[in-house]
């Protein structure tokens, strides 16, 4: 992928393009940001921009050099991954040795170290001198989702390029690029946690309507008169088959309440689930009339707590029951 085609990382891309353009690209960069937001693609894009013979500075993706880079056969673009669960010192020594020589054919040689936080201590230390002063023409790009796990001495020798979680707009755009309807795109974006891979996964599973049905049932149970429906619903949706959907269901529920809260606070433009405007307005109305915004805010907290509880192995039935009982304040107007 060319640098300019990477969605939702305008900052990082602009920074890299300008650096290439002005000839001020540092020889050691650290691409940091959450999983699956385009770091590795950007590293390859940078390699294209630096090594392309047809369109130097941006890359064309079609020339001989570009195609060899994209299929991983260019002698001067080395994309490394940890040999075991870690990078071993032998791998680092190979990089050190190679980085002390001139590139073979391209103007620069580029090392891309994916998951750089997996460098074990000896390997990381071994790279220090090279990261600081490589032989001219050698570039190193360290890619990581956990920059805090890198040695401070490594962080200080590299230029940080930050990649951000993909914003709602970018996510919806990517989803629509893959042919999703607005409703599907919004749901998938709410489930993606800002990561492209999870967005596409959510789109592919095509579970949108069934997830929303569960959300509706949970809310209905919480809004019912007695406690009976709550126990029934918890038993139904936390049984062995349904419970694997619970994290998604709770994510959607939290997002629904959050959007309603944002709506009620008068910042409706920040809501993501615009296709569910009626639901949002109904909840917001209820919050305004029967209780207050704090209740709605507490509802979000309850749902978030329930999803944390699920992650930390709390019995799902209990977690759901507690959540719905707490939601009664909002949904059924019970104090």
């Amino acid at each position, binding site marked *: 992928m060319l640098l300019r085609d990477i969605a939702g990382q305008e900052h990082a891309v602009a920074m890299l393009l*300008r650096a290439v353009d002005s000839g001020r690209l540092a020889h050691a960069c650290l691409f940091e940001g959450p999983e699956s937001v385009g770091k590795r693609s950007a590293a390859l894009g940078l390699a294209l921009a630096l090594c392309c013979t047809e369109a130097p500075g941006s890359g064309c993706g079609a020339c001989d050099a570009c195609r060899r880079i994209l299929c991983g056969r260019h002698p001067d673009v080395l994309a490394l991954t940890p040999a075991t669960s870690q990078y071993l010192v032998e791998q680092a020594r190979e990089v050190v040795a190679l980085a002390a020589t001139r590139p073979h054919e391209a103007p620069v040689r580029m090392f891309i170290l994916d998951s750089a936080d997996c460098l074990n201590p000896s390997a990381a230390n071994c790279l220090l*001198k090279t990261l600081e002063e490589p032989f001219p023409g050698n570039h190193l790009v360290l890619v990581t989702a956990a920059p805090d796990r890198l040695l401070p001495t490594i962080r200080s020798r590299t230029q940080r390029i*930050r990649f951000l979680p993909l914003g709602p707009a970018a996510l919806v755009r990517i989803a629509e690029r893959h042919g999703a309807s607005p409703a599907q795109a919004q749901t998938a974006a709410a489930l993606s946690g800002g990561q492209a891979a999870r967005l596409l996964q959510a789109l592919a599973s095509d579970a949108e309507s069934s997830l929303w049905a569960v959300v509706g049932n949970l809310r209905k149970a919480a809004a019912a008169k007695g406690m009976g429906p709550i126990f029934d619903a918890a038993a139904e949706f936390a049984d062995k088959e349904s419970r694997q959907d619970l994290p998604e269901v709770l994510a959607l529920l939290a997002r629904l309440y959050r959007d309603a809260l944002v709506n009620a606070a008068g910042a409706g433009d920040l809501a993501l689930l615009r296709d569910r405007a009626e639901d949002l307005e109904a909840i917001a109305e209820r919050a305004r009339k029967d209780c207050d915004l704090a209740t709605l805010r507490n509802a979000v907290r309850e749902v978030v707590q329930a999803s944390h509880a699920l992650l930390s192995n709390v019995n799902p039935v209990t977690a759901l029951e507690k959540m719905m009982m707490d939601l009664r304040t909002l949904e059924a107007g019970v104090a």
Partner: protein
Amino acid sequence: MSYLVLARKYRPQRFGDLVGQEHVARTLTNAIALGRVHHAFLFTGARGIGKTSAARILAKALCCEKGPTADPCGTCAICRSIASGQSVDVLEIDGASNTGVDDVRALREGVRYVPAEARKKIYIIDEVHMLSTSAFNALLKTLEEPPPHVVFIFATTEAHKIPATILSRCQRYDFKLLPTRVLADHLARILGSEKIECEPEAVRLLAREAAGSVRDGLSLLDQVLAYAGSETITRERVAEVLGVADRRLLLGLAEAVLKRDTAAALHALSDAVDRGVDLVQLGRSFLGLLHDFEVVTLVPDASEVLDASPEEIAETKKLAERAPRGLVTALFERWARAVEDAARSQTPRLIIEMALFDLCFAEPLLPLGDLLDRLGKLESRLSAGGPTATAPRPGEPRPRLSVVPPTPPPVVPAAGAKAVKDAPPALPVSARTPETDIASVWRRACEAFGHRPAIAAALDHAEVSSWEGGQIVLVFDQKLALDQAARTRPELERVVSQIVGSPTRIALQLGSAENGKALLRSEVDREAEATAAEQRQRESEARQHPMIRKAQELFGTAPKEIKTQ
């Protein structure tokens, strides 16, 4: 094509260029001038503050054709070959790549030979902490007594990983992190020589983000230059590139929170995220701003404490004055928790947004003293109202009192241990009959103040010394407690009068109260006495038991010990 980053371009070439390490530069300069140069050095300190540079300068200083001099010329053949890393006599070794004992053995082989062209043979081992234990040990003898032409210079960020035997053979120099101001000046100088326009505010922000390390600062500067191109570098630009929250943005957020305008706060947050600010970073910066709020309200001259310009401080102060007392503390506590949660969460934005709502709903957190004062005032107002003082407390449902018959007075009137034990559980003062037993009176008086920790604590230090003619004498073992009780004496008298059922005065004294103890023994004492009496009773019963008597007859001796448990 390859661009030389600023950190390499402006690597110090003379001791005078070392920024912020004057203590090291001066010691080394003097050592060279006096000819007292040690043969093994250890440079240690945080990342990017001049260890490797100092090692290279020292090498040049010792080898320069015009030396040894503290001020190497930098132009002679040897200086130039050292600077370009091509000298055969100055060997810069990457300790992290040559970690094994064999590498050290090879090094020791070379040590024996005299330098080829320079005056000294210098071994610079960078990242020396990565050498293996045997590698270190293999060095020991050489390090202690090397040939006269050899100097070792070790550089590391982690001196604690180096064996004590190595440390004791080296002269150790600790490099320090740079204060923000020094670093800012240095960055400004470099910008000057690069002929780049830059706002002072921007430089300050860069220096702050570099956290004391020159190389970090220059890396960040490189990043900003790469982005800004030839434009003037402004504070906004720096904030944008580094992904830190601009102060103006933070102030906007704070203003929205103080106005309780959730929509504005959400929009400010959304703007920040759109501009590429990292959420957790934003959270931490906002926490810093809340901290600044407290500081500017408490410290008259905040410029000495805070790392900010006078205008920023004035701005902060103006906003801080709008926050009611105690609110900022409440905000800080909530926000701190939210930031920690967000850093660990999969959905940091949700957490931060909800925390913003929390902040907008937050009530001031009053200091405990304030609350006590308020409560005290409320109470005195109630007591001034006369009859209200004897009315049941507001929380007490009125009808219940009429249904439940008044508690009968204790059956045993004397001050015996039993009586106290059987006393009914505490009820509201007004619902009880007059007391005649000083122990119960005192206990109930203390209970009545149980909800006011300050007074209750003071009463803990009191003993009743006498109770005669409508006057109770309290003896305190602490001046502090006495003073506290004296302040609340009217209330104390009122409560005691109510319990006793007749007007009672209270006198306060300082000192130990021997007879007070006799009059009013503590609960624990009483219990202990009761248990002892019971024990005696059981023992004598046991002695009377027919089987024991029979045994006594058989063995012809009295039981030595009787266990009753």
